[in-house]
């Protein structure tokens, strides 16, 4: 460890006792310990997510007027945001005359779904996913989870969004 001609160890060497050529050297035992420590941290993180996820109960959704019911003809759509301004949704009148609404965010990779004219399907143009507009279930393409459904109520000729079913 003596780097000077007089045999004294320089002060910086005391602070950094690892030699340059040993710097990259990690034993398998150290690697196994490091990985096991990482494993413990991952358990802690997963547990924290579990506690956070179970505490974050679905809140009370606001009652929000969406549109006049007559403003959406059969096969027609209307875009709105619910429950917050960051949540785009689509209101659709099915060919059967029933009004339905879903989150517009595709459950595959979050592109915006659009109504497929002439059908009761919502289409995601990014990866050609499709959802059945009757119940929001995936009908084609990569999505595997249904679209969150917006609960609707009609009152006095107006349509109100009153909740979200995931």
């Amino acid at each position, binding site marked *: 460890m003596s780097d000077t001609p007089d045999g004294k160890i320089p002060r910086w060497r005391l602070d950094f006792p690892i030699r340059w050529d040993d710097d990259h050297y990690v*034993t*398998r*035992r150290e*690697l*196994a*310990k490091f*990985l*096991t420590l*990482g*494993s*413990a941290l*991952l*358990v802690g*993180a*997963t*547990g924290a*997510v*579990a506690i*956070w*996820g*179970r505490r*974050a109960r*679905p809140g009370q959704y606001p009652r929000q007027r969406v549109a006049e019911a007559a403003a959406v003809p059969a096969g027609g759509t209307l875009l709105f945001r619910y429950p917050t301004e960051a949540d785009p949704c689509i209101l659709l009148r099915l060919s059967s005359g029933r009004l339905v609404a879903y989150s517009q965010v595709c459950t595959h990779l979050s592109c915006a779904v659009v109504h497929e004219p002439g059908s009761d399907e919502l289409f995601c143009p990014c990866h050609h996913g499709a959802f059945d507009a009757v119940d929001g279930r995936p009908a084609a393409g990569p999505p595997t*989870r249904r679209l969150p459904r917006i609960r609707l109520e009609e009152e006095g000729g107006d349509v109100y969004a009153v909740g979200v079913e*995931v």
Partner: protein
Amino acid sequence: METRAQGLPLFTGICFLIGTLVVVQLWLLAAALEAARSEMPHVLVPATIASLALLLVNAGLLWYVVDFDRRLRRQGEGGDG
């Protein structure tokens, strides 16, 4: 009797195995995050239990490696792992 020749591949294999299990735990964490965001709380507890089980397996493997190393050193054969 443990030998260094046994120890080297054993340590390498166990490191590889622990690393693989850590990757599975990362996947479990990602699944738990997605479940929490999608309001699917029934996924969260099983993901945590599975992750904990993998940690116990990892700890057991590490304990085995350390114990193997200790016995090897006690025999005076050396072995740095």
